[in-house]
């Protein structure tokens, strides 16, 4: 009995000590500058953490700031959050960049300067559809209504340039787009080169790209106007520095950013001119 009581007491003491230990670094952190980082949920949350945590750790060492990764469950939730200015820094697609600039005044900080973003349209290789014009009145698969290159930009071009009337279905992921096309559920599907390239050879070999959209600058890391220029620049320099190291390149490649460079709002002006808002599905 006494032994049990003793163990209990010891446990309680141990717990209190642990709490103190946890609390102490938090208290020290308040002395540092803390930034909230948002990332578009293009991957699942865990993977996002795996990608971003090493980068953010490096950034903390470089800048002396503390970065807090704030996850968003869905893209609309993410859109709502950055529209409300929830993040100090945020990684987002180019159309989001337009929306964020318009809503909160977010400004691009860095972007992949090596690649450009464009959408592709695939059909079954052994199918009847050989060109875009064959798709009149067909069902077309897209990952989501507001996916920039694969959906918004693709639908804008099919609508504006080809005057196609089609029935879009949204199958959540690029992979599903390709599967729907293969299975014949959709006559064609919108994707991006990167996701197409990552498909298994069996899938790629059975699909045929019949159209590419006009390339746009890829995803930028945006900064909220409340972050002062010094701080923003310090972070930008740190990121750029990261892109100059081998280890950092590997880290950034996972985002993906093949080669990091400075970004400006001007990079996204062509996109702005497409008026993609016409194809945005708000309620989705």
């Amino acid at each position, binding site marked *: 009995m006494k032994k049990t009581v003793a163990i209990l007491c010891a446990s309680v003491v141990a717990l209190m000590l642990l709490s103190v230990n946890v609390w102490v670094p938090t208290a020290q952190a308040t002395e540092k500058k803390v930034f909230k980082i948002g990332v578009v949920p293009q991957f699942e949350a865990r993977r996002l953490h795996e990608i971003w945590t090493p980068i953010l750790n490096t950034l903390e060492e470089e800048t002396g700031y503390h970065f807090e990764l704030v996850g968003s469950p869905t893209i609309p939730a993410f859109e709502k959050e950055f529209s409300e200015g929830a993040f100090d820094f945020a990684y987002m697609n180019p159309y989001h960049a337009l929306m964020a600039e318009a809503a909160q005044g977010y400004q691009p900080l860095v972007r992949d300067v090596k690649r450009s973003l464009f959408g592709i349209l695939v059909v079954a290789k052994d199918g009847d559809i050989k060109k875009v014009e064959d798709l009149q009145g067909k069902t077309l*698969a897209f990952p989501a209504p507001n996916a920039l290159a694969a959906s918004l930009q693709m639908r804008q071009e099919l609508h504006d340039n080809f005057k196609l009337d089609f029935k879009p*279905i*949204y*199958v*959540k*992921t*690029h*992979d*599903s787009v*390709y*599967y*729907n096309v*293969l*299975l*014949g*559920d*959709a006559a064609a599907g919108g994707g991006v080169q990167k996701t197409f390239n990552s498909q298994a050879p*069996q*899938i790629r070999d059975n699909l045929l790209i019949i159209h590419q959209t006009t390339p746009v600058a890829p995803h930028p890391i945006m900064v909220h106007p409340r972050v002062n220029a010094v701080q923003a620049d310090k972070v930008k320099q740190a990121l750029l520095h990261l892109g100059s190291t081998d280890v950092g390149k590997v880290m950034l490649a996972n985002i993906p950013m093949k080669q990091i460079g400075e970004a400006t709002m001007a990079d996204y002006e062509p996109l702005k001119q497409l008026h993609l808002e016409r194809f945005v599905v708000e309620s989705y």
Partner: protein
Amino acid sequence: MNIRTKLIFASLTAFSVYMLTLFFVWMPMQLEKTKRDFVETQLMILNATGPDVVRNILSRDYAALIASFDKQMLNHQKTWAQISIHLGDGKRIYPLFGASQKPVGETLIEINYEIDTIDRGIATINLIADWKTVRQDGYDSVFELMRFMGIAFVLMVSLGLLLVEFLLRRPLMQLTDGAEKISQGDYNIQLPASSNDEIGSLTNMFEVMRTRLDEGRASLRHALIRAEESEHYQRTIFENLSEGLVVLDQQGVVQRSNRAAEQIFGYGYGQLLGERITALIADQKIDIHAIESLQVGQAYLYQGKKSSGDQFALEMVVSRIEMHNAQLFALILRDISLREQAKAALIHAKEAAEAADQAKSQFLANMTHEIRTPMNAIIGLSQLIFNTKLDREQRNYLEKLREASEHMMVIINDILDFSKISDQQLTLRHAYFQLPELMDHVRHVIEPQGVKQGVSLFVNCPNALPRGYMGDKQRLEQILLNLANNAVKFTPKGGEVYIAVALKERINALQAVLQFVVKDTGIGIAPEDQQSLFHSFQQVDGSSTRRYGGIGLGLVISKQLAQLMGGDVWVESVVNQGSTFSFTVTLEIAENQKYEVEKEKRLFLNIRPPMAAIDEKRLPQQAKTAPGHALQGVNILLVEDDPVNQFLAKAILEGAGVIVKVANHGQEALQLLEAHPFDAILMDCQMPVMDGFTATEQIRTQKKYRALPIIALSANVGKEDVEHAFAAGMNAHVGKPFQSATLLAILEKWIFNPDHHH
């Protein structure tokens, strides 16, 4: 097979059955269940994916679906061999590529899971699962269990063996050793420690058994010792019997014999065994069948045969013995050669003695007969002389002569009686008589002498006594008269004599002891003389012989007669005051035998008076009533060979007016009877030519002489002689010498009143 092996065998069998059951029944069941569970689990997994599958299909998010199942396949790579998902329109969405050929394998199970989707119909998940691993796990667990059971079995059997060894086998082995020792006679054995179980009770029972056996053995040993002692005892007796003892079996072979038997037959020790009875007895007919037919306990005489071949007289008594269902014969044997010789000598001596005795008796009989005949003449003639004219002096001399003659007759009769009693030839009659009559007769006989000597006589016969008896009245009278006569004789003038009878003892309804007493007031007898009174040829005083006469045989005879009649005679006396003679006799009481008394009267009426010393004067009634008046003119045939007796009888008869014819013998009598009629015949018995008996028999053959009175006249007065006379057909018997009055009275009675006697 010992308990250990049995236990092992039984356990092994049970274990094998258990293991086989486990392997062939339980394990398949278990595997089947495992398989079911496995399928169930797979279905549950598929079921869990169901909602995602539906959602993914509905949203056409095939990538998610595929990724999900890729991941599932990865997760279940050990058990899922293949999974394929077909949509309701038949499209296979998983796997998207690859052959649709189903893998084949023993452990593969095909599971179909159907999912209803709204717009695409029913999607089917076809899972081919491999339960090999699960089955192997099942096998492993069963084998593990069996291994565990095996170890447990070995442990249990070992423990069981230990228990059996210590609780069962060792005690049992101890008991077995104990039993073996007991069977070898060693009762001092180590028994297992006592316990409360079956072995314990077995041990206890064993202990009880051992104790009983030990006791039994001890008592058996005692019994054996006793039996040996008994056997020794009996053998000793058997061997030392003076008689030979031989036991034969049913074949007549000697089974056993004692020393005496061996000696009798001249055999060595033990040599008789196995001999046949036929070898031991010379008689031809003797074999075992003859032995069987002999009467048990009866002595038989045989010619024995010794081993030397000599023969000898052998007495044999046979006993039959039943033993163990076999018939044996025990022969008791005596060599009686010596005894037979002695017996022969004895028989010879006895025959010689008997011959001598016969000669003596014959001599005595002859002598008395020879003496009686002349005495008859003397007495008869002197009586005749009395009837002639005599002067006083002559009559006095004649009286003396007659007294001497009669005294001599007494002596002769006494001698005859004495010799008969001595030779045990005297036989007592057994006939009816009446006691008052006897007493009366004694009084009548004694009274005249009493009167003559001036002695008063008192006779008492109480009426209360039984009257009739069966016995020898004549011999009883003889004793009483002898005593009474002596009393009167030795009592001086003026004295008194009492004669009395009393019932001394009533033995039973039929027998009584009568005591007779004769008391006098005489000279008495000195005590020293009383003992010799009853001895032969002695009298109280030598002088008394001179004074009173007689040779003193009377008391001796009386005593002997009384003893013959179951009594005795004794005397009480005081000198000069008197003597009391008493005697007892045992008689049969017979009250109602009237006929017998008549017959006896007829038979013994004419018997001579017991006391011969009774003259005519002492019988005044008989002598003086002038018998024979009625006989005037009666014709009598006198058959008599002796001339003197012829003369005597003829004188008496003719004196009474009888017409007498004389025949000298029987033949002559028959001739005279033919020629003359007679009223009666007086027949002498012993005669030349033809004796009286023969003559009488011949006379009686003629019917006309059946009623003719024939009266015997004979000097032979023995009982046999009288009976012989009656047997020949004579009516009465008159002994010689006879009283004239007696003769005449009898004649008168038979001639005139013969019917009275029939």
